[in-house]
């Protein structure tokens, strides 16, 4: 760790702290005493963060995240431990998060951007570089770089990995003779046939347009105008047959109102655990491979609480509970050591290599491409 600061800087910080212009947390963090205390604390259970000590992070923290993405018990535990209550705001797309941050004053302390969006946040100066001394639970060596690299832009760590996953589909197999679908071709063709009125797609340009592009055998990330035009035509044709356009598709799949949906790994895992007829499948044409990160937006109102929350969520034990609740794979080897064998061998979380190889990471260009944004809006208002 890089706790070493010059003697001069230390004295400056000490004076600032004595004058009261910085909080104790800041002082401890900057000077490295925080890390020392944390190490001391973790080795001596009696010294572990008591409410009294933790109270200087304030009594609240605001998290902007995705649907069905956490173990609520972990939040309760965080509140018990630190005294800070969580407000969880749920979003349906990265565009929505970006729009809220661009308009200013989102009020969030922590948010969960996806790999391909982080460079844009950095360019737009909307993301805080992380002070790793406040995240003792972050150990870069423990992470698979494939799912942690996107958090580092120009050598600066802006975001730390939460979990990764794939974008495929969930199908209620009782309406397909007990078999899942295997391709996006089937997904859309059957929607216009015997699955009419039973299919959902995301309210999200990347995955919905991506799936339509995959149907035609194009890249998930295409911004080519002719290819997008083909995708649009498909989507407009499919629209009358859709049950809903929503990124929160679990309730309708659970109630049986809908039979088929574009789906993320964890939702597929949660659904198939509770309802065995629901299967999670990847399209053989391809799809999205992604990784989500914890990050702090510029100007977060409760900065200390934000660090405390991220650090808490990175604790391997906490993270393992998260995995058991949300059903997404994590790139953290320390967490994986704590997980039962069947989770690590679950084909939903860890698809077969040939399926995985067909997937693509989202491209930053799709986030800001005006044609893709307008295409989705036209599709929804059609």
């Amino acid at each position, binding site marked *: 760790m890089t706790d070493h600061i010059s003697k001069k800087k230390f004295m400056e910080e000490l004076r600032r702290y004595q004058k009261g212009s910085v909080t104790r947390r800041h002082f401890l963090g900057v000077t490295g005493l925080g890390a020392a205390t944390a190490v001391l604390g973790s080795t001596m259970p009696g010294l572990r963060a008591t409410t009294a000590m933790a109270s200087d992070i304030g009594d609240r923290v605001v998290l902007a995240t995705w649907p069905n993405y956490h173990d609520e018990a972990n939040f309760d535990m965080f509140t018990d431990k630190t005294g800070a209550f969580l407000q969880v705001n749920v979003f349906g797309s990265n565009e929505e998060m970006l*729009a809220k941050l661009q308009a200013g004053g989102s009020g969030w302390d922590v948010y969960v951007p996806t790999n391909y969006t982080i460079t844009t946040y950095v*360019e737009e100066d909307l993301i805080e570089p992380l002070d790793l001394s406040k995240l003792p639970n972050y150990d870069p060596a423990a992470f698979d770089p494939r799912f942690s690299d996107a958090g580092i832009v120009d050598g600066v760590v802006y975001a730390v990995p939460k979990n990764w996953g794939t974008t495929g589909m969930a199908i209620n197999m009782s309406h397909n003779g007990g078999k899942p679908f295997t391709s996006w071709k089937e997904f859309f063709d059957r929607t216009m046939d015997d699955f009419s009125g039973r299919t959902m797609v995301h309210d999200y340009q990347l995955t919905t347009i991506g799936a339509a592009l995959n149907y035609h055998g194009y890249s998930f990330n295409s911004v080519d105008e002719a290819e997008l035009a083909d995708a649009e035509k498909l989507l407009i044709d499919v629209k009358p047959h859709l049950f809903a356009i*929503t990124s929160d598709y679990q309730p309708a799949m659970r*109630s049986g109102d809908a039979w088929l949906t574009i789906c993320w790994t964890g939702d597929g895992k949660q659904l198939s655990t509770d309802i065995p007829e629901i299967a999670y499948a990847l399209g053989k044409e391809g799809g999205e491979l992604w990784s989500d990160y914890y990050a702090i937006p510029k100007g977060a109102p409760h900065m200390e609480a934000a660090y405390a929350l991220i650090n808490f969520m990175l604790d391997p034990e906490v993270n393992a509970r998260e995995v058991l609740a949300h059903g997404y794979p994590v790139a953290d080897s320390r967490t994986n050591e704590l997980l039962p064998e069947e989770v690590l061998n679950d084909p939903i979380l860890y698809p077969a290599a040939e399926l995985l190889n067909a997937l693509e990471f989202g491209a930053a260009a799709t986030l800001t491409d*005006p044609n893709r944004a307008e295409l989705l809006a036209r599709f929804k208002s059609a």
Partner: protein
Amino acid sequence: MTQRLRNWLLVAPAAAWLIVMLVLPLSVVFVFSFGERAPSGGYVPAFTFEQYANLPARFTAFKNTLILAPLGTIMALLIAYPLAYQLAVRTSQRWKTLLLVLVIVPFWTSILIRSYAWIFLLGGGGIPALLASLGIEDVRLIYTPFAVLVGIVYGYLPLMVFPIYVSLERLDKRLLEASADLGAHPATTFLTVTLPMSISGIATGCMLVFILLMGEFLIPALLGGGKVFFVGNALVDLFLQSRNWAFGSAVAMMLIIIMLVTVTLYMRLISRLNVQRDDAQLM
């Protein structure tokens, strides 16, 4: 202090408020509607009619709004009028207040929560399950235009009941008795006395509900499953998803123009009806 100066001083604070918080924002929307989308979203100054030329891309949203808003208004009127009549004319003084309050009480829970209750009621486990047990299978209600219509009628019913109730309450009951005494058929009495006398209430109620429906966004979003799109939804999408402020401003300008035209025409019509009624009374 002259009277003129005094009047000006009285008007000044509110006028300043309206100029800063209404005229300025609308002017910004007007200016932005001629601009362009910034590369990563937002607005860059320009002078182009491109955004207006692109308006047909939101044709369906305008069409949905212009069909469902009047339809919702009329349905709310049809449901509200008999109730208002019952309360104003046929209910004893004792029960009146209580029954009237019962109409507004649901209004005090957030429209969000009430709409969510409708998601449950209209979803597979609610009314369709009830119908299925009666032998009517496979009814799909949630995420349809019908669900949106139910939601908006439900949401705005009290706004329709109240003005109609007030206008009927003011109606002199002796007129109804006189009409009946003179041997008029109840239907004739209703058409010649009651209905004309309550026109002002109907007009107010319809206008309130119509204005709110034209800008509706929540109910279609919650009960329409992202498929039943109003102009309001298109606007939210443009500002909160595709971040195209210029095009969003053009859509907003179009909505304002449609509102100005329809509401002004509507007011003309109503005032003409009122004039006719006044003439009739004079005769």
